[in-house]
Every structure is written in C-alpha cells, then in structure tokens.
C-alpha cells in the first residue's frame, strides 16, 4: 500500500522533517533527524529506481487531481537516477556532518542549518520528481533559497557576499525560467510536462515558443553555471561551510543539468530544441570554452576549495558537451558524468572538509608536508583527483570514454582530442596538490597536525571508494544511463 505513495513520500519526508528540526532546536536531535530523513529518502529513491526499471514509468497524482489539471509526479529512468544520486550524496554528507558542522557553524545556528539542509534536499528531490513545469519552479525556489542560506553560514565573512552574489544570479535565472514556463503556458494552456510535449509541436513555429526555449535555456544555464554564466559558483563553493560545498557541488548543479535535459528533450523534444534552433552550435563551443577556461583558471588558484570549484565549472562543460551531441552515446556520457562527477566532487570536497577540520583553512600554502601527516585524507584526494582526470579503473575514465565515443560517432574527432587535452589540464591542477602535500617538507610549527578523525574519514572514503567501485563495476551506472538516454531520445520522437 505504501509503495504506491513513494513518489510523494520521497519529497514530503525531508520537507516535513525540516520544521521538526526547527521545533526541537537542538543540534544533536536535528542531526539525527536529518540523517534519518536522508537515509529514508535514499531507500525510497532506490526502491523507485528498481520499480521504474522493472515496471516502467510511475505516476502519482497529488491531491487526487488527474493530470494534466492536477500536479503529477512522474518517475522515469532519468529522474529516478537523479533522485538516487541526490539522496545518496545527502546521506553520505549527513553522516560526515556533525563534527565538521560543529567546528564551522556557531552552536545556536546548527539546528537551523539542518533545517535549511533538509529544505534544500526536499527542493532538489522535488525538482527531479515532479512532472509539472510550475511545480518544478516552486521546488527550484525552495532549493535555491535554502542554498543561499547554507552558503552564507560559512565562517569567512566573504561567504555573505558570495551568497548574495549567488542570490542575485540565481534569482535572475529563476525568473528567466518562470518567464519561459509562463510563455509555454500562454501558448498551450497547460503546465504538465507530458501534456506540454504533446501540444508544443502544434505551435512550434511561433516566436513565443522560441522565446520560451531561449528563456528556459539561459535561466537553467545560469543555475547550472555553464560558461559564461558561472561567475557565482567559485566564490559560493569556496566560502560555504565544507559540508555545504560537498552537498551542493555534488547535487545542485546536477539537478540543474537534469532540468535542462528535461526541458530540451522531454518538453520541447529533440527535434524542436535542436533542429529548429541552433542550440548544438551554441552549447558545443560554450561547453568546450568552459572546460578550457575553467581548467586553466583552476591551475592558478591558491585556495583549493576555489580550485575545485573552477574544476566543477569545467566538468559541467563535459556534461553539456555530451548533451550537445544529441545522440544516445552523448546523452549516456552526460548522464553518466552527472553521476560520476557527483561521486568525485562529493568525495574530494569531503576530503577537503577533513583538511579544513584539522587546519582551519584550504589554502595550498598550508598543505606542505601534509601527505605524510594525514595519509588517508590525502590518499582520498589523490584517488579523487585521478578520477577527475579520468584514469582507467575510476569513474572518470568511464564518462570520458563515452564522451570520446560520442565525439567520434558524430564525426567530430577534434572534439575528442580537445576532451583529452582538457583532461591533461586536470592533471596539472591536481598535481599541484600532490607536489605540495607529498614532496615539500612540513613546516616545523605545524608538527602537531594529525590525521582527521575516523567519523570524517569514513564517509569520505565511502564516496572515494564508490569512485573505484563504479569505475570497475559499470553495469548499474552505464546500464541506467543508457536506458535513460534512449528514453529521453525515444520520448522525443
């Protein structure tokens, strides 16, 4: 009986746990509640994915109102996979949280922090679960508003300006999305995505629909930090508390990429998005510029959190590159990298969280000689870095492999070459950490630095281990990603 309600419970449980955290207003209780809610969300997401893969699309009518009038939750292979990523990262990050949060956030704000985290989780899960364009916007606002709050909680006072910058950019993005949805509603009179997909081809040639596509693409690109709309991201990631950076870096932009996939392929359909409009010719160069410019900027960063933030911009470039091929292999690469990048960046930012916990800073000048003092933490950073570069036996290799395949398949061999050169840039910026941490002598006065506590290392290594596990055992990820890609393109024709 409960299984039919899973799509709603997926979102409702974290959403309602947030006010309970507020009621108790106790750091420890709030953490336990958040961990339980995240784990329950993970179990639900796993069950949903399993149901989708065996039974097919699941739909749920909120309030019993039939679609397209009521709000419908619609779970298909694509968003079931995204739900699983978000919930899994949420659970791991929460198991990492208590020590790190206690050291970075003032005691009286911790319960509020967990409430904001749960709202953010609920918003991200809601974006993925819903099949209604306006409901998506509402959940986008829930997740964005709570993530502004989360980022502003950083210890550095620059976190406030970073959060404000993100607030301005994010609000512009959300407004663009709302305008896009409004224009679609104007032309079709419906907000249900499946219904929109049916009605849009009839009015495809109007300028309003073209404007809606443009508004939605630009608005979502702002949220997912596609070059040149990425300027909010480096500061937001660099100054947010470690736990928040790990969570948002691994989930926020991924859900935004999912939104782009959903609108371009399901709502507008591949024909309308890519043949009538010149989207691939815009997205392909932009994504390549993102890879190169962000990787090069990353090489020159002294704050390692900031460096990895720029690296995120580059990795988002790879995802959009996969998308812009509009082929099954390309989309597979995009969806795979969505999952794989969440693992890499989640793991790397958690490892950095360990460093910040021990050092109080992520500045590279403090890293000298730490490789021997904190062997497990830095081993995690090295493995995560190898995965980021795309070394075989890590997940990074799998997504790069499919990306190169997609480039060759579309006959653009030069893109494949550029992807490989981009990976070399990742070698350069990851090597800087290795060089400083392992080959420079430790300063004398820092000799009391020790390895991070086990409660921080364990969650970090869960994600880092997943990088290797899914790098060797690719059945689940590639299988699901391929099904999702076929479904997205099949649903379009």
């Amino acid at each position, binding site marked *: 009986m409960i299984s039919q309600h899973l799509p709603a419970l997926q979102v409702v449980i974290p959403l309602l746990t947030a006010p309970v955290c507020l009621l108790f207003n106790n750091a420890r209780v709030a953490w336990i509640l958040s961990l339980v809610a995240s784990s329950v969300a993970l179990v639900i997401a796993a069950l949903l994915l399993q149901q989708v893969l065996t039974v097919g699309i699941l739909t749920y009518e*909120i309030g*019993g109102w039939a679609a397209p009038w009521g709000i419908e939750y619609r779970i298909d292979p694509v968003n079931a996979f995204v739900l699983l990523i978000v919930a899994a990262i949420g659970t791991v990050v929460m198991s990492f949280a208590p020590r790190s949060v206690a050291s970075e956030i003032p005691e009286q704000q911790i319960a509020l922090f967990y409430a904001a985290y749960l709202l953010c989780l609920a918003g991200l899960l809601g974006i993925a679960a819903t099949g209604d364009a306006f409901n998506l916007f509402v959940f986008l606002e829930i997740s964005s508003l709570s993530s502004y709050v989360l980022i502003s909680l950083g210890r550095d006072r620059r976190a406030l300006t970073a959060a404000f910058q993100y607030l301005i950019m994010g609000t512009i993005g959300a407004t663009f999305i709302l305008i896009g949805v409004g224009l679609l509603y104007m032309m079709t009179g419906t907000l249900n995505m499946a219904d929109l997909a049916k009605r849009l081809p009839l009015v495809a040639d109007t300028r309003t629909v073209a404007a809606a596509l443009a508004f939605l693409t630009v608005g979502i690109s702002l949220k997912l930090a596609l070059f040149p709309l990425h300027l909010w991201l480096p500061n937001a990631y660099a100054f947010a508390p470690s736990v928040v950076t790990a969570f948002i870096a691994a989930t926020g932009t991924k859900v935004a990429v999912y939104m782009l996939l959903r609108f371009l392929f399901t709502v507008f359909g591949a024909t309308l998005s890519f043949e009538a409009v010149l989207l691939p010719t815009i997205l392909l160069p932009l994504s390549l510029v993102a890879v190169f410019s962000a990787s090069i900027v990353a090489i020159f960063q002294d704050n390692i959190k900031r460096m990895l933030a720029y690296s995120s911009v580059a990795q988002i470039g790879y995802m959009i590159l996969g998308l812009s091929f509009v082929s099954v292999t390309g989309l597979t690469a995009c969806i795979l990298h969505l999952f794989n990048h969440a693992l890499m960046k989640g793991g790397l930012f958690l490892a950095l969280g360990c460093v910040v916990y021990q050092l109080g800073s992520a500045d590279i000048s403090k890293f000298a000689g730490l490789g021997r003092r904190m062997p497990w933490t830095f081993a995690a950073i090295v493995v995560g870095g190898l995965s980021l570069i795309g070394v075989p036996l890590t997940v990074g290799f799998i997504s790069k492999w499919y990306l190169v395949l997609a480039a060759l398949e579309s006959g653009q061999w030069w893109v494949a070459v550029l992807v490989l050169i981009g990976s070399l840039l990742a070698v350069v910026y990851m090597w800087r950490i290795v060089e400083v941490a392992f080959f420079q002598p430790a300063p004398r006065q820092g000799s009391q630095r020790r390895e991070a506590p086990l409660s921080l290392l364990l969650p970090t290594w869960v994600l880092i281990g997943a990088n290797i596990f899914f790098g060797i055992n690719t059945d689940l990820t590639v299988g699901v990603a391929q099904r999702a890609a076929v479904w997205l393109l099949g649903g379009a024709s």
Partner: protein
Amino acid sequence: MRHHLILRIVAKLLIPPILLFALYVQFHGDFGPGGGFQAGVIFGAGFILYALIFGVETAKKVAQPEIVRVMVAVGVLLYGAVGLVSLLLGGSYLDYSVLAHDPVRGQHLGIFIIELGVGITVAAVMITIFFTFASRGRS
C-alpha cells in the same frame, strides 16, 4: 515615539481591526477573495505596526520570538499533516476528499486546515523577518 500622540492613538485604533480583517480574509477565503497567505501577511502587518509605534522590545513581549519560531514550524507541519492524514485514510497525498464521509465536506475541511497552516506560518515568518532586521546591531 513617545511624543507622537496621534500615531499612537491611531495605531491603537487600527491594530484590532487589522487583526480582525486578517481573520476575515483567512476564514472567508474559501468563499471570497483571500486565503492563508494574504491573511498571514495582514496579521503580521498588525504586529509590525505595533512594533514600529511602540518599539521592538515591547512587541517582543507580545509576540515572543521563541513562540513565533514554533509557529513557523507548526504552520508547515499542519499543512503536511493534512497530506499525511489523507494518505493514511487511503487517498493520495493531500487528497482532501477522504477527510470526511462526504467528498465535498472533505475538500472543504482540507482546504480550511491547509490555509490555516499557511496563515500561521506566513504571519510568523513576517514577524520573524521584521524582528531580525529591526534588532540588528542592538543585541
């Protein structure tokens, strides 16, 4: 504001009708224009007017921040609880029809409680935001 006699008298006269009007907008929302959000804003505005005229500290004695904070959570929980109850009664989430024997009455009851939840949270959030900004740099 001690010397602004007119402001104080007018505020004292206005605040009760403002709160009453908020309740009217709240509970008449299912028949006429209105609803929880609007009612919550009006209700919060009554408190904000009081705080503007008589000072934030006095207003905090009327609406204690700890209680207001609980109200923020209670409103949302009330909303969510209606959804969970309808789920337990065999409907889908937020399906009000199962809340009473007669679907029409159920719909009526459901929207009534939900709007109440919205009203409570919106009023409490309005007051909290005002208190937060108004007490900046004082404590």
